[in-house]
C-alpha cells in the first residue's frame, strides 16, 4: 500500500469537510496539492487565490481572524520560501490558526529541478517563534496529524511529499503534536528520521540486523516543538545518533537534534540530508541516490559510527 502524503492530505480534507471552521485555500496548484477533489465537492469552503502565494497567506490570516481554520496549500518552495514574511508577520506574529500545507517538499519533486525543490523550508519555519512543524511519515499519520491540527491553537507548517510512500504504520494512531515514536529498539546506535526518510531508516536497520548491528529507529514527525524528553532518553542509552531527513543538513531535524543535545547531553551525532547545495532535475530515485538520501547511505554512516 503506497500513497503520497499529499494524497492523504486531500482525502483527509474531504473527511473533515463538515467541520464548520475548515476552509481550504490553494494557489493554482490544486491538482498537484490534491485539494482539487475538495474544491469540487465543497466549493463553498474552497478559495483559489491564483498564482499569488503572499496574498493567499494574508487571506488565510484574515480568515483565521474571522474564526476559521484555513489550510493554505501550495508547494513548499512557494509557501515557506516566497511567502516567508507573510507567514511570519500576518500569521505567526498573531499566533493564528492557519495551517500551511506545503507539498512537493525535498528533492523528490524530481524533474522540475532545483528551483522547485525546497530543501531549506524546515529551517525557515523553525526560526519563526511559535511555529509548529509536522512532517508525517505516511498517509495514516498525515490523517491523524490533521485531526490533531484541527484541535491545535497556533500556526502549523505541514510538510508533505510528492511521491507515493510505503505505510510505516499498520493502522491509524492518535497523533500527539510534539511526540516522537520508537519504531525499532536496539543498543548499538540510533537513527532519528522524519518523513520519507523513516522508511529508509527502517530498511537500513533491518539490513544491519543481519550483520548483528541492532539500532533504535525513531520516527520524529514533529520537528518543532521537538520531543526533547525522548531525545534525552535515547541519548542516555545509545552511543551515537544519526539523523536523516530529505532537507538540507543545515537548519532541519538534524540541526534541531544537535542544538538540543549539544547543550543537554552531548553525544556523537551525524546528520544525513542534502549537503549545502541546490538540487537538480532528475528521476526522484536517482536524485535520492545522488544526494545520499537512501538506506544504503544510512548503513554506510552507521558502520562508520560503529567502528569509530
Amino acid at each position, binding site marked *: 500500500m503506497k500513497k503520497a502524503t499529499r494524497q492523504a492530505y486531500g482525502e483527509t480534507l474531504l473527511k473533515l469537510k463538515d467541520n464548520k471552521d475548515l476552509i481550504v485555500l490553494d494557489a493554482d496548484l490544486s491538482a498537484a496539492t490534491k485539494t482539487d477533489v475538495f474544491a469540487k465537492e465543497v466549493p463553498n469552503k474552497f478559495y483559489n487565490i*491564483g498564482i499569488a502565494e503572499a*496574498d493567499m497567506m*494574508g*487571506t488565510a490570516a484574515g480568515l483565521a*481572524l*474571522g474564526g476559521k481554520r484555513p489550510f493554505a496549500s501550495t508547494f513548499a518552495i512557494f509557501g515557506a520560501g516566497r511567502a516567508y514574511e507573510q507567514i511570519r*508577520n500576518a500569521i505567526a506574529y498573531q499566533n493564528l490558526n492557519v495551517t500551511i500545507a506545503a507539498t512537493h517538499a525535498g528533492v523528490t519533486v524530481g524533474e522540475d529541478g532545483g528551483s522547485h525543490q525546497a530543501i531549506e523550508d524546515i529551517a525557515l519555519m523553525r526560526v519563526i517563534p511559535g511555529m509548529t512543524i509536522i512532517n508525517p511519515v505516511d498517509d495514516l499519520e498525515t490523517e491523524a496529524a490533521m485531526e490533531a491540527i484541527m484541535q491545535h491553537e497556533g500556526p502549523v507548517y505541514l510538510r508533505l511529499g510528492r511521491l507515493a510512500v510505503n505505510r510505516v504504520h499498520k493502522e491509524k494512531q492518535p497523533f500527539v503534536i510534539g511526540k516522537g515514536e520508537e519504531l525499532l529498539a536496539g543498543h548499538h546506535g540510533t537513527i532519528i528520521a522524519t518523513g520519507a526518510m523513516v522508511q529508509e531508516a527502517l530498511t537500513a536497520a533491518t539490513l544491519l540486523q543481519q550483520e548483528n548491528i541492532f539500532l533504535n529507529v525513531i520516527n520524529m514527525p514533529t520537528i518543532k516543538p521537538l520531543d526533547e524528553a525522548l531525545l534525552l532518553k535515547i541519548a542516555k542509552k545509545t552511543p551515537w545518533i544519526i539523523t536523516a531527513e530529505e532537507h538540507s543538513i543545515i537548519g532541519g531535524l538534524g540541526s534541531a537534534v544537535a542544538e538540543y543535545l549539544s547543550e543537554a547531553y552531548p553525544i556523537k551525532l551525524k546528520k544525513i540530508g542534502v549537503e549545502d547545495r541546490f538540487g537538480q532535475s532528475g528521476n526522484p530515485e536517482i536524485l535520492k541516490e545522488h544526494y545520499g538520501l537512501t538506506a544504503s547511505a544510512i548503513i554506510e554512516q552507521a558502520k562508520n559510527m560503529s567502528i569509530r
Partner: protein
Amino acid sequence: MMKFEEKARELRGNIISSLESAGSGHPGGSLSAIDILTVLYYKEMDISLENYDSQDRDHFILSKGHAAPALYAVLADKGFFDKKELLNLRKFSSMLQGHPDRLKTRGVDSSSGSLGQGLSIANGLALAKRQDNIDKKVYVLLGDGELQEGQVWEAAMTAAHYKLNNVIALVDHNGLQIDGSNDEVMAVNNIADKFKAFNWHVLEANGHDITSLIEAIEQAKTNKGAPTMILCETIKGKGVSFMENQVGWHGKAPSPEEAQRALSELKEVL
C-alpha cells in the same frame, strides 16, 4: 460636523504627545490619516467595546501600520485602554508597540506594519463574514506609497474576483514616503484608474473634510457586486504647520519644544 472636527483636533494633540514621549515614530502619516479614522470610528463603523468580542461587527485594519499613533489615540479615546498608556508608546514592555500588535493592544483587529499585507487580511476577514452570513464591513486603510508593494495588487484581484462588496479600502493619498515624494521614488500614478481596471468601485474624497469622507463611505456601504476603494486626498502632517507636506516628518518624533509649538497651534485652531 463640528464635533468630529473637534474630536480629530483633540486626537491630533494626543498623537503629538505620544510621539514626543516615545522619542521616535511617524507623525506625518498619523496626522494625514486621523480625520479618516475619526469618521470611521466615531460615525461609520459598527465597532465598540461592547461588541468587540463578537465577529458580528465591522472590522478595521490599519495596513499602513506606521500610523499606529493615530489608531492608538482613537482606541484610547473609545475606552479600549487607559489614555495614560499613550505616553508609553514604543517603550519597553508597553502595550503600545511601534506598529499595531493585536496580541498586546485591545482594539487592534490585526497586527500590521509590514506594508502591503493589510488588504489580503481584510479579504480573508470579509470571506469569513460571508461564510457566516454576517452582514458587516471590513475597512482597511492603505498608504499611497504602500501601493508600490505587489501584494496589494494580488489582493486587489482577489477582492474583485470574489466580489467582496464588504471590503471598503481607503487610500491615504498624501503623496510622500520616506525617501521623497511618491513620484520621485516610484510613481504609482492614476490610482483610481488602476483600481477601476481591477474591477473595483472607486470613489474620491477629501481626506480632511468630514462631510466628504462621510458621503464617500456611506456610498461605499451601498455598493454591490464589487469592493470599494476610496481615494482620500490628504496632506502629510496635516494640522501642524511646520510638519505639513514635509518628507522629513515621515518618521521623526517632535522634540519637546516642537511638540509644544504643535500643541499650541492645534489649540489656536480650536
